C-alpha cells in the first residue's frame, strides 16, 4: 500500500468518526420531533405555549406549558444574575490578581465544582438549603425559586468562570504592558483594557452558563418545588420544563397525548438552548476585537 492510499484511508476513517456524532445528534433530534410534533394535532401551538394550565392527566387534559416556561426562565435568570458576577469576578481574580499559589488552588477547586454530580448538589439543596430557608423566612416550603436559583448558580459558576478565564488569558500581554506603561494602576488596566478586550469571550461564557442552567434537570426536579403555576414571588415553588419531563415521563403511557406533550416540551427546550448557543456564537463574533498590532 503506497503512502497516498494510506493518506486517503486515514482521511476517511476520521471523516467517519466525525460523521457518527453528527448522525447520532440528527437521529435524536429526528425522534424528538417525531414523538413530540403529533401533540399539535390535538392542541394548537399557541394554546400549548401560552396555555396557563398544565393538567396532563385530567379528563379532558389540558396541555398549557406557559407556567413551565416561566418557571424555567425565572430560575435561569435568577441563577444567571447570581452566577455571572461571582463567576466573572472569580475569573478576573484568578487570571489577573491572584498570586501563583492561590491561583492553582482556586482553579482546581472550581474545576472540582464543575465535576460535582448534579444530584449531589440537588440533595444539598433539599436537605441543607431548603430547611434553612423554611425556618429563616418562615415559609411553607424551602423548595422554591430562590433555592433552585442558588443551586443552579453554583452549577453555572464553573462554566462561566473557566470560559471567562480563557478569554481573559487571551488578552495580549502587549495591551496590559501598554496600559501599565501609561501609568495605569492594576485596577484601571483591568477595567479599561482587559475586560473590554475579553468582552466577547465573557459574553459567550455567560450565554453558555445560561444554557447550562436552563437545561439542568436534576437540581430543578429536586429543589424547585414542582408547582406548575405562575409564581407570585421568589419564595414560590415552580416547575421548570426539564423537571416536568423527568418527573412525568415514567408515568405517561407510551405515545399518549401526555407522552407527546412531554416530547414537545423537549422540542421547546431544544430550541431555547439552540437559541442560547446561537446568541453566544453571534456575540463572540460580533464583539471580537482585532488582535494586537497586526502588520
Amino acid at each position: 500500500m503506497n503512502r497516498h492510499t494510506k493518506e486517503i484511508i486515514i482521511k476517511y476513517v476520521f471523516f467517519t468518526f466525525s460523521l457518527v456524532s453528527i448522525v447520532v445528534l440528527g437521529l435524536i433530534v429526528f425522534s424528538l420531533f417525531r414523538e413530540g410534533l403529533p401533540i399539535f394535532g390535538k392542541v394548537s401551538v399557541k394554546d400549548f405555549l401560552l396555555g396557563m394550565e398544565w393538567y396532563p392527566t385530567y379528563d379532558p387534559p389540558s396541555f398549557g406549558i406557559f407556567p413551565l416556561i416561566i418557571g424555567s426562565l425565572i430560575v435561569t435568570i435568577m441563577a444567571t444574575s447570581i452566577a455571572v458576577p461571582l463567576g466573572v469576578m472569580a475569573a478576573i481574580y484568578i487570571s489577573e490578581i491572584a498570586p501563583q499559589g492561590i491561583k492553582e488552588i482556586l482553579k482546581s477547586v472550581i474545576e472540582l465544582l464543575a465535576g460535582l454530580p448534579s444530584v449531589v448538589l440537588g440533595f444539598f439543596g433539599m436537605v441543607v438549603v431548603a430547611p434553612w430557608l423554611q425556618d429563616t423566612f418562615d415559609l411553607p416550603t424551602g423548595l422554591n425559586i430562590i433555592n433552585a436559583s442558588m443551586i443552579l448558580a453554583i452549577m453555572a459558576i464553573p462554566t462561566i468562570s473557566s470560559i471567562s478565564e480563557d478569554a481573559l488569558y487571551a488578552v495580549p500581554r502587549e495591551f496590559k504592558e501598554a496600559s501599565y506603561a501609561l501609568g495605569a494602576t492594576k485596577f484601571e488596566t483591568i477595567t479599561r483594557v482587559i475586560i473590554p478586550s475579553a468582552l466577547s469571550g465573557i459574553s459567550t461564557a455567560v450565554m453558555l452558563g445560561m444554557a447550562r442552567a436552563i437545561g439542568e434537570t436534576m437540581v430543578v426536579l429536586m429543589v424547585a418545588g414542582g408547582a406548575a403555576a405562575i409564581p407570585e414571588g421568589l419564595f414560590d415553588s415552580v416547575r421548570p420544563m426539564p423537571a416536568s419531563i423527568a418527573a412525568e415521563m415514567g408515568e405517561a403511557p407510551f405515545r399518549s397525548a401526555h407522552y407527546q406533550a412531554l416530547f414537545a416540551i423537549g422540542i421547546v427546550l431544544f430550541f431555547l438552548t439552540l437559541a442560547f448557543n446561537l446568541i453566544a456564537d453571534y456575540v463572540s463574533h460580533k464583539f471580537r476585537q482585532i488582535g494586537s498590532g497586526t502588520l
Partner: protein
Amino acid sequence: MDSDIIIKLNKVNFYYGQSRALTDITMNFRKNKVSALIGPSGCGKSTLLRLLNRMNDLIDGTRVEGEILFEEKNIYAQNVDPVEIRRKIGMVFQKPNPFPKTIYNNISYGPKLTGIGVEDMDTLVEQSLKRAVLWDEVKDILNKSAMNLSGGQQQRLCIARALAMKPDILLMDEPTSALDPISTAKIEELIEELKKNYTIIIVTHNMQQAARISDETAFFYLGNLVEYNKTEKIFTNPDVKHTEDYITGRFG
C-alpha cells in the same frame, strides 16, 4: 554632578530569580539626547530599559540592587509609586500595541487616568498626534479603530499615546524592528524631531540605526556595560576591542 544628567544608574544589579541579568551597571543618561543601547540578544539592554520605568516590577521573581536616580531621586526607593514614574517616563514597545479602541481613545487613555477635562482633551489629542507626525493621516478617522492603521502608523500612534502623557523621557524598545524600511525612516525622522523636547533612550538591534539617530551609544554584552561613549566615537574608534568586534560584525 552635571546639570544635564537626567538619569543616573549607580551599581545596578538585576536578577530574574537566581540568574543575574545585569551586573554592576553605572551610567548616566543626558537630557535631550538620544542614547542608544546596543548589543547581541540576551545582553540585558531591554532589561535595562524596562528598569527605568519599573516595567520589570510586573514580572514575578525579579530583584533590583543598587540605585537608579531620576532627577536625583531613587525610583526604587520604598516610598516611590511606580505609577508616578511611568507617567513621567513613557515607553514605546517593539511590536506596535495600540489598544483595540478608537484612535482618539488610544491617545486619551493615559491623560484620562490623570483626570484631565474633556475640552482640553481634543487639543491634547491633536497636539500629540501632530508631534508624532500622524495628525494629517488620521484627522478624519479619529473615531475609527486604531487596528485599521498600518503597522508604521500604529507605531506612531503608540508614540503619540506616550507623548500625550507629557513625559520627560521616552523609552523605546526596538521601535522599528517590526516595521518596513519606509515606516522605519519615518520613525527615525520623528525621533530626530522629538529629541528637542524629550530625552530618548532607545534599544536597537540595528547598528546603522544607532549610528544614524543617537548621540550616545552604550554597548552591552552578557549583562555588562562594555563601553558607553559618544556615538561617533563608538562607531569610528572604540576604546574596547570587544566593541569594535561587535560593530564590525565579527560576532553578534
